[in-house]
């Protein structure tokens, strides 16, 4: 009830924050895919790098967001305050599931199929784009799905560094112990995560077929 009245009074602001939230999640997931998928592929070609790279991605996940922001503020290009820094942090958090699933998806391709490709005279590049990636796509996409859904929740921390998003309501609510405000940010973020999960799940099932 309070919540509906709140949205009624703050519709413009709420939609603005929702828009910022979508941009933060979209941009960071896209960047994480652009970095994470090639990195995952690289790991299948250089198995010795697997331990260090996945270990590092794991460590990134454990850095508390405020500490990460503290490190990022003084950095040139990547740092400062605002959306750019928030997106850098969100990419850092999104990398692990994408890199790991890309690696797992491609190394899970049946060796016999790979051999058949080689036997047909495929180059490594052709093998990757025509055999390994198509066959591993379901698993790779599952990683992207996890990264996106987690990202919707994680993006609420962007409000700590002036990047806006639904976290603004959560931060305001926490600083004034106002349950309505906290819910005004948390509830749409939760619904957004469910929608993203459902949609990406549909795509994933198509790819897996």
């Amino acid at each position: 009830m309070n919540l509906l009245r709140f949205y009624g009074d703050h519709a413009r602001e709420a939609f603005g924050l929702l828009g910022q939230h979508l941009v933060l999640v979209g941009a960071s997931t896209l960047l994480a895919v652009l970095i994470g998928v090639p990195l995952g592929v690289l790991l299948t070609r250089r198995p010795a790098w697997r331990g260090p790279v996945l270990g590092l991605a794991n460590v990134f996940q454990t850095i508390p967001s405020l500490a990460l922001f503290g490190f990022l503020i003084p950095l040139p290009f990547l740092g400062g305050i605002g959306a750019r820094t928030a997106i850098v942090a969100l990419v850092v958090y999104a990398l692990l599931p994408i890199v790991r699933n890309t690696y797992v998806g491609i190394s899970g391709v049946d060796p016999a199929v790979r051999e058949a490709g080689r036997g047909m005279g495929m180059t490594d590049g052709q093998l990757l784009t025509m055999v390994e990636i198509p066959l591993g796509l379901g698993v790779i996409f599952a990683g992207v799905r996890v990264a996106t859904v987690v990202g919707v929740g994680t993006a609420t921390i962007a409000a700590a560094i002036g990047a806006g998003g639904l976290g603004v309501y959560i931060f305001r609510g926490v600083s004034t112990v106002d349950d309505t405000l906290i819910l005004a940010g948390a509830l749409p973020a939760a619904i957004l995560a469910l929608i993203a999960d459902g949609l990406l799940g549909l795509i994933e099932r198509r790819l897996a077929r």
Partner: protein
Amino acid sequence: MTGGLSVSRTVGRLSAVVLALFGGACSHRDRIVVGAKNFTESDFLAELLAQQIERRTGLPVERRLHLGGTYVCHEAITSGKIDLYVEYTGTAYTEILKHPPIADADSVYRADSLEYAKTLGLTWGRPLGFNNTFAITVRRADAEKYGLRTISDVARIAPRLRAGFGYEFLQRADGFGGLARAYGLRFAAPPTAMDLGLTYRALAQGNVDLIAGNSTDGTIQALDLVALEDDRHYFPPYDAAPVMRKELVTRHREVVRALAELAGKLSAAEMRRLNLAADVEHRDIAALAREWLAKNLP
């Protein structure tokens, strides 16, 4: 619609359960529970009160430090989950009692004491001796370049500056809205809302040009920043003083007597030094409190 209502009820119930769980230990009544807000100074002051009570009365004291902002501590003490914590007179006056800010320190303290006793069943102890006001803060280089000494000076060049504030300062009645009206502040863009702790770093790195810190913060000195004078006396006084549950006051007069010894003993300069020691030199607050008590109240 009932959906939102029942969700907010569920959250209310959940937070009651959480409070009951972590507050459960203080149902044991001879244990005195000291609370603190979520910043270093509040933690230190809680530790100071705790040690003073322990060494003067021998009663066991439990620490519940870093609880959250003003509202969380207030909820905790009115519901009996903590027995005392250090509050600031102006914060209680504007944020808890919802009065418009006024400048006179004595009137604020008197109004707080009276209304807390009458409506909340809480007792104010005597102020510790320092005023931790909001400090509108800029980099020293800018202060020298533009000749900034007061907030009025900043108002002249505000359109050239970017401001960054914590969420509480942006929401409070005695926060940014009133400040901007009192001084006619117009910044280049609306202030950036961010985590309070990160504002200092953003200022020092040049990502923003003006922030609202606390006047007793050690970081102001450590990062070579300058706090500007509130020349129009917009901010009310924020004298730190212990707030106690009436039950504690009536059952343990010795606790009140022990805390009265601290009255007026802690200056703003001293508090700044202690915050610097804790925040920048990473000294342990319990050790700092022990040393301070040994030196000032042997």
